[in-house]
Structures are given as structure tokens and as C-alpha cells.
């Protein structure tokens, strides 16, 4: 015992240490029998020592075949090589004793098998050390699970984004993922394209010019590459799309591929194209209006018009008829796109248009047996529309449009033909009126000229001009004045004397003894007058003007008349351009002030319709004016709310410009009432009343728009385009005051202005 005490003192208690180690240890014999286990091992495995010692490790811990063979291999290796072996983490579930619930507990281990050589140098024992790494395995697993969830979410997002084609490619452009949006948009199933080149979606033209490579280069250099162009589907059809290509990086930040998002914009592009189409129509209108003005008869403008219509609207035939009122028949005035040997007759369709004074239209003629359409069919037309030309209640003729290449015309086409017919009608009517005017005016002019004539004589050698009472009158001098030559010359408009001398010289040089010139004189009151000079000239021996005897005429009125006529002949062009300018202003205002593109488009189209409504009324009245009530009625009926907008007031004639301005302002009020005001609710009402009052020797127009029964009114924080149009635009147009009051019970708009002129002043 002493020895043993001495031993205890001198030697370390390895057995005690072995048991106290926190890491589980097992000591095995080379044939894998358990020699001993430390306390940590017993605790961890929830086993007792006597259950294990002396048994093979495989018997003591049976089961899990894969784990067993790996352990056997490791132990054999240790015995053979005499070197430690580090085993990978393995799962080995531990049976739970019945008293703690039984069953198995999931465990993960990292075993290390270390040889312990005996005296003979061979392996005597194997130290089997196991580290319980269950916790860290579980943690990693939770992380991975979380990652999988987020990946799954991304995948779902990408998959559900069916409006977008989203796919990825490797560095060589080979597709490796493909979402359902890509399937929809590009027509390839994922298995059809994964593994193939993404170049397939480029058009051949783009491939030829190296667009795919350039896009990848840009994506790498700039972090992303945007594009907007045509793409190809599997079936070869094309669509317009905007896209973005981005490099795809792995965890180390290296680029390992590309990521592409595409969005189909074909719809938007079609909208833009439709817009262009509309613009093109406006251009046709403008050109036609100018052509019509430049020609002597509307028929002369037909070939140019037909060319434009043929090119842009697939109109293949056009016919223009004149109404012979006396005979009560229509006669063909001109035609285009009809074979020369065809005898054109006004057929039943046109007859219907004449009788009803309304447009007549038939489509799908190729499949129709209708005998009344026989003529149109005989010249191969598939659709045919005839428009009567009516001005001031008189039927002037008709215009017809036909196509051979389309089954029918669209509503927009038909509306356009209607507008075009109106233009032609206006020009015809103007021409007729002007012709009548000219005849009566030329008679009048003779009388005017006769009273403003003076005979005069100029002695160029002595530089004197003889005066007469008539000449005094032409120069704005008192009748009894005796102006000196110098005083007469002073009356010449600067530079005009030289013009006179040149005319005289040129006449003499060419052997003419007669000269005629127009020149200006300035009266003492500063006003400028035009004189026409007709003179007999006598030259001296050198051919210089020596003496002139002639007649001077005051042609100021005629000059003014010419200017007026010059403006008149451009009148329609002017009106069309002004209308276009107003439409452009309407568009830019609508787009500038809107919150969204859709809103802008909607309010623009509505305003355009309001403007067109006013134009319709004015066209009906040959652009001479409109009744206030008719203008008010458009705004009242626009929203189908006619019965709830009560109109009352006397007859009042408005000039076209005022009519349009008022129509626009009322449209803004009505739109606001429908959206936010009285017409939004079921029982709300609007009263639009106007009267003419005498105040301070002046007639004033008092107008009142008053809403009732709508939701309580809240004054807007920001004054929109509508308010500006009404308060600033309309008040300026009327030269009066226009105010909007945001009364809680309903919006009130008040107009107090001079009664607008019934007609425009003539050009002075």
C-alpha cells in the first residue's frame, strides 16, 4: 500500500484524467473490441460501461451500414499504417433510453482514430476520439434551409413574372435558366433552349452586325447594357422589346455569366405608330387645304390628294360629283383610280347619300350580291363610302372613296374622309361666295377710282410739276394750295421717287412712250396713300425723260382690298394651321400637366373631342359663327348628363374663336363636375344660365355655371390647366372677368364680360 501511496504521489493519475476529459474517448483493441470508455463517452452516448466493455464496437453500436463500413475502413487503416486517421463528419443516431422517452436522437460526429503502439512496435490499442458536432451541423443546416427558401422565393418571383422574359446565360452566351415569361414571350420551352445559344432571339440583321457580342461587351464594361429593338420568337415572328443585360457574378465576384430581362413593348410601339398615322392624316389635311387654295377648282387638287390617300390609307379610287340643281342629278366632276373606259354613274349608294344628305357606306362588297352596289363591284371595290357636300343647307355635290385592297375602312378612316369632305365643301363654298363678291366689287371700284383722279404735267427739264385742285386732293393738301415742286416731292414716300424715275427711264430706253407705275405718297397727317400713275413720256435728244403728261389715281382702297384678298385666299390655310396650332397646344398642355401618360392621353382625347364638337357646329354654319346655346349643349351632352345640366338664356351669336374658347372652358367645367362635382353623384345638377344686362351704357354678358347636390367641394391645392384655361384664357378671350368659386355646396363659375362681337371686323 505504501508503494501504491508512493506511486500515487510520484505518478500522475492518467486514469483519472482519462475519465475527466470532456471529449468522449474510447479505447479499442486492434480487433475493434472496446477496452475502455471515458465518462464523457458514456454520458454522450447515454450508455453504461458494462454494456460496452469487451464487446466489438460494431456490436455495441449497431446499425447505419454506411457509417459502419467507413469506421471499419478507418480502423483497419490505422492498424495497417500505424498512423492516425481523421474521419469525415458522420451521422450516427443514438438510441435514447426509455426513461427519457426512447427512440433515436440525431447526432453528427467527427471521429479521429489514433494508434497506440505496444512494445513490439505494432498497434496495441486504438484511441477512438469522437467529437459531437451535432450543434454546428444543425446550425449550418438551418442556414442552408434559409438560403434555399430565399432562392425558392427568387425563383418563384422570376417564374411568376410572366410579362418579363428572364433568363441567364453562361460566359459563352449559352442559356442556362429560362423563366415562364421567356417561354410566353419567345415561344421556346425551357428544355428546348437551355444548352443552346441565346443568340437565337436576335434578328438575323442584328446578328450580322454583331449586336449580341457588343451587348455582352457593354454589359461587362458598364455593369449593364440596355437595348430596344426587334426580337425573334421561335416561330420566326418578331416583337419589339426593351431589354437589359447584366453580368452575373459568383460569390467570389467573378463574372460567370449573364442575366437578361426583356419586356414586350409591341403594344406601346403600336400606339406610337397609330399616333404617327394620325399625324400623317393631319399632314394630308394641311397639304390638301393648301392645295385646294392654290388651285382654281377643287378638282385640280384631286390628283395630289388621291396620291396621298392612296399611299397612306389604301384608298384606290376617288370620285367627285357636282350637283346639278336644275336637272336634279349628280354629275361626275372628276375621278381617280378608275379605268378610263368605265362610264361612271352615280349608283344607288351615292343616291342614298344624296337623298338622306348623310354619309353612306358599304363594306365586304366582294361577298355581296346586293344589286344596288353593282357599279362599285364592277370596278373591283371591296369597300365604298360616299359623302354629301352640304353648305348653308345646299347640296353641292359628293365625294366618294373606295378601296380594293382592304375589306373595309376603319371608323377613324371614315371620320377622316368626313373631315376631308368638309374641307372641300368649305373651299367650294368660299370660292362661290368670293366670285360673287368680286363681280360686285369691281363695279364699285370703277366708281371710286373715277372720283380720285387728277391730271398732271411734269416738265423734267425745268424740274417743275404743275398742280391742280385734284392733285392737291390726292396729296392731302388744301384744294386752294399752290405747292412748289419741292413741296410736292416731299410728299413722295422715301425711295419711291427713284422708282418712278427708273420706270420712266426704262420705258424710254425700250422705245416706249407710255409708262405706268404705282407709288406711295405721305400726306401731311402722316397717312400713306397709294397712287397709280399713267403717263405719256417725251424724251430729249439723249433719251432722258424730259416731259410727262399723265393721270394719277388714288388706289389706296384698291391696295387695301388687294391685301385683304391676299389674306382671304390664304384664309382657309390660316384657319387650318391655327386649328393645328391649337391642337398642338392642347396636346402639350394635356401632357405637361398630367400625372400619368394614360391620364394625359385620356384628357387630351376628351378635349380634342370637345374642340371637334365646336368645329362641327361652326362647319355647319360655314364658319360664320355659332349660337351660344349650341356650344353650351355640347358640354352638357358630352357626358350623357344632358338632362341634369339645365341650360337657359337668350339667343346670342358668337364668332368662331369665342365659340371654341367657350366650348373648351365649358368642357373643363363639365369634366370636373363628372369627376369630382355635382355630376359625380346620382342626383347632382348643374344650372348653366346666361343673360344680357345693360350696365353703364354697355351691354354685358353675365353667365353662371352653378353645381348643386354633389359631394362637398374642397378647393384644390394646386390650380390645374382647366382653371388656367377658364380664368386666364377665357377671360382674356372675352375681355372680361371669369371666376371660379369653390363654394362648399357646389362649384360656381361666373362670367362678366362685354357682349362678344357677333362677327369679326373686316381686315382694314
Amino acid at each position, binding site marked *: 500500500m505504501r508503494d501504491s501511496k508512493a506511486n500515487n504521489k510520484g505518478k500522475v493519475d492518467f486514469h483519472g484524467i482519462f475519465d475527466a476529459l470532456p471529449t468522449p474517448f474510447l479505447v479499442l483493441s486492434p480487433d475493434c473490441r472496446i477496452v475502455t470508455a471515458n465518462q464523457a463517452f458514456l454520458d454522450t452516448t447515454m450508455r453504461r460501461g458494462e454494456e460496452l466493455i469487451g464487446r466489438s464496437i460494431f456490436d455495441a453500436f449497431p446499425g447505419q451500414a454506411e457509417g459502419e463500413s467507413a469506421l471499419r475502413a478507418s480502423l483497419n487503416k490505422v492498424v495497417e499504417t500505424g498512423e492516425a486517421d481523421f474521419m469525415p463528419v458522420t451521422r450516427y443516431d443514438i438510441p435514447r433510453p426509455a426513461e427519457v422517452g426512447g427512440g433515436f436522437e440525431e447526432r453528427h460526429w467527427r471521429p479521429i482514430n489514433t494508434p497506440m503502439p505496444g512494445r513490439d512496435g505494432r498497434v496495441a490499442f486504438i484511441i477512438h476520439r469522437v467529437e459531437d458536432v451535432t450543434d454546428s451541423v444543425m446550425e449550418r443546416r438551418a442556414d442552408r434551409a434559409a438560403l434555399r427558401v430565399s432562392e425558392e422565393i427568387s425563383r418563384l418571383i422570376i417564374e411568376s413574372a410572366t410579362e418579363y422574359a428572364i433568363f441567364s446565360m453562361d460566359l459563352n452566351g449559352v442559356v442556362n435558366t429560362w423563366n415562364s415569361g421567356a417561354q410566353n414571350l419567345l415561344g421556346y420551352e425551357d428544355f428546348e433552349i437551355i444548352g443552346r445559344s441565346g443568340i437565337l432571339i436576335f434578328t438575323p440583321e442584328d446578328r450580322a452586325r454583331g449586336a449580341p457580342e457588343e451587348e455582352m461587351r457593354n454589359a461587362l464594361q458598364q455593369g449593364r447594357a440596355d437595348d430596344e429593338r426587334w426580337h425573334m420568337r421561335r416561330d420566326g415572328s418578331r416583337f419589339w422589346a426593351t431589354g437589359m443585360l447584366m453580368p452575373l457574378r459568383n460569390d467570389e465576384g467573378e463574372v460567370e455569366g449573364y442575366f437578361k430581362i426583356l419586356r414586350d413593348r409591341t403594344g406601346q410601339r403600336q400606339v406610337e405608330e397609330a399616333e404617327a398615322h394620325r399625324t400623317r392624316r393631319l399632314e394630308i389635311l394641311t397639304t390638301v387645304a393648301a392645295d385646294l387654295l392654290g388651285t382654281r377648282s377643287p378638282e385640280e387638287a384631286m390628283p395630289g390628294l388621291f396620291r396621298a390617300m392612296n399611299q397612306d390609307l389604301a384608298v384606290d379610287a376617288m370620285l367627285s360629283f357636282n350637283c346639278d340643281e336644275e336637272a336634279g342629278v349628280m354629275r361626275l366632276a372628276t375621278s381617280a383610280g378608275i379605268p378610263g373606259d368605265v362610264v361612271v354613274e352615280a349608283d344607288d349608294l351615292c343616291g342614298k347619300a344624296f337623298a338622306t344628305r348623310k354619309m353612306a357606306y358599304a363594306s365586304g362588297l366582294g361577298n355581296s350580291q346586293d344589286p344596288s352596289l353593282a357599279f362599285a363591284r364592277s370596278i373591283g371595290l371591296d369597300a365604298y363610302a360616299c359623302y354629301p357636300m352640304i353648305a348653308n343647307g345646299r347640296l353641292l355635290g359628293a365625294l366618294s372613296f373606295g378601296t380594293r385592297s382592304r375589306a373595309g375602312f376603319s371608323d377613324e378612316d371614315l371620320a377622316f374622309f368626313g373631315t376631308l369632305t368638309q374641307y372641300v365643301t368649305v373651299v367650294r363654298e368660299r370660292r362661290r361666295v368670293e366670285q360673287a363678291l368680286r363681280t360686285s366689287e369691281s363695279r364699285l371700284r370703277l366708281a371710286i377710282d373715277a372720283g380720285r383722279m387728277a391730271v398732271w404735267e411734269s416738265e423734267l427739264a425745268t424740274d417743275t410739276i404743275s398742280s391742280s385742285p385734284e392733285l392737291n386732293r390726292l396729296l392731302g393738301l388744301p384744294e386752294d394750295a399752290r405747292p412748289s415742286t419741292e413741296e410736292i416731292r416731299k410728299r413722295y414716300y422715301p425711295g419711291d421717287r427713284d422708282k418712278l424715275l427708273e420706270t420712266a427711264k426704262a420705258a424710254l430706253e425700250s422705245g416706249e412712250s407710255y409708262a405706268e407705275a404705282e407709288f406711295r405718297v405721305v400726306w401731311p397727317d402722316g397717312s400713306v396713300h397709294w397712287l397709280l400713275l399713267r403717263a405719256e413720256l417725251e424724251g430729249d435728244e439723249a433719251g432722258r425723260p424730259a416731259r410727262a403728261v399723265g393721270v394719277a389715281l388714288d388706289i389706296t382702297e384698291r391696295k387695301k382690298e388687294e*391685301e385683304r384678298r*391676299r*389674306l382671304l385666299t*390664304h384664309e382657309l*390655310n*390660316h*384657319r*387650318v*394651321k*391655327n386649328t*393645328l*396650332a*391649337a*391642337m*398642338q*397646344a*392642347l396636346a*402639350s*398642355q394635356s401632357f*405637361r400637366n398630367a400625372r400619368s401618360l394614360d391620364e394625359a392621353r385620356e384628357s387630351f382625347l376628351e378635349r380634342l373631342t370637345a374642340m371637334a364638337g365646336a368645329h362641327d357646329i361652326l362647319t355647319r354654319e360655314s364658319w360664320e359663327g355659332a349660337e351660344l346655346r349650341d356650344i353650351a349643349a355640347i358640354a352638357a351632352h358630352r357626358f350623357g348628363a344632358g338632362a341634369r345640366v339645365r341650360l337657359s338664356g337668350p339667343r346670342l351669336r358668337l364668332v368662331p*374663336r369665342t365659340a*371654341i*374658347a367657350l366650348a*373648351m372652358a365649358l368642357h373643363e367645367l363639365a369634366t370636373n363636375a363628372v369627376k369630382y362635382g355635382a355630376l359625380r353623384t346620382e342626383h347632382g345638377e348643374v344650372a348653366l344660365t346666361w343673360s344680357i344686362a345693360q350696365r353703364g351704357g354697355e351691354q354685358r354678358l353675365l353667365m353662371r355655371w352653378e353645381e348643386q347636390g354633389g359631394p362637398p367641394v374642397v378647393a384644390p391645392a394646386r390650380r390645374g390647366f382647366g382653371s*388656367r*384655361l377658364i380664368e*386666364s*384664357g*377665357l377671360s*382674356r*378671350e372675352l*375681355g372680361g372677368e371669369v371666376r371660379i368659386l369653390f363654394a362648399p355646396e357646389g362649384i360656381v363659375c361666373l362670367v362678366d364680360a362685354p357682349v362678344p362681337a357677333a362677327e*369679326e*371686323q*373686316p*381686315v*382694314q
Partner: protein
Amino acid sequence: MMSVSPLRVLVVEDEMMVILDLEDMLEELGHVVAGVATRIDQALDLARSGSFDLAVLDINVAGEVSFPVAILLQQRGVPVIFASGYDAQVLPEEFRRHGLLQKPFRTAALQRSIQEQGAGDRNRTESVAVSPARAAFPRVPGDDHEH
């Protein structure tokens, strides 16, 4: 580039929508609408009494031609731009050198026209003793906006 010192602009135009839009366009270009006339008599009053650096005139204003306004402005050295649906041939010879903006026009065309008129006027006034165009394009050295 052109300096964008704000010009005081007189607008003579009878079309309500066009005025509203023209106001926006001029504002966008950094200029100020200093007067609007929708009739010739108003325009003549303004041209006589107001101070402007530029005028944009419609030709047919409520049925009257705006040429008398142009003559008056010309005498006062104010550059004039005609904006009209008429084409250049209705302009009497003496106005042909003024800009004619064909309606409808866009902001860029207006800007170009303003620049052309500005340049043309400066050349013209260099050859005469009185230089009304100095008033037309005021350079204000003491005017510091940085206050």
C-alpha cells in the same frame, strides 16, 4: 452659346389655346411674357407704352392685320417674329426679313427664331447711331442675381 438673359416678350395672338402654350414655351426658354394682346388696338397701345425686348405677332388677329403693330415696334427697335398659319408670301416686302414661324410650331423652332432675330438686330443697330436694340437686348452689368 446664346446667353439666356430673360427677354420681356409681347405676345399678340387671338387664339386662347395658343397663348397658353406660348406662355409656357417662352417660360421654358427662360423668358417673360410681359404683355398679351388679343386685339390690334390693345397691341398698338402696348407697343406704344410698354417696354419689350421682343414681340411675337400673329398676322391675322381677330380679323385685323398686325402689320401696323410691327411698324410701330420696328420704330422702337423691338425685334419682331411673326407667328402665323399664313405663309411668307402674305408678308409685305418690308417685313420679309423678320422671322416667320409657321404654325403650328414647337419650342425649338421658337428658340431658333428668337436667336435669329436677336443676331440680326444686333448687326443692324451697329450701323446706326441710335441703338434701340441695346434696349431691346439689355445687358445689365450691375444686375447680380446672386444676392
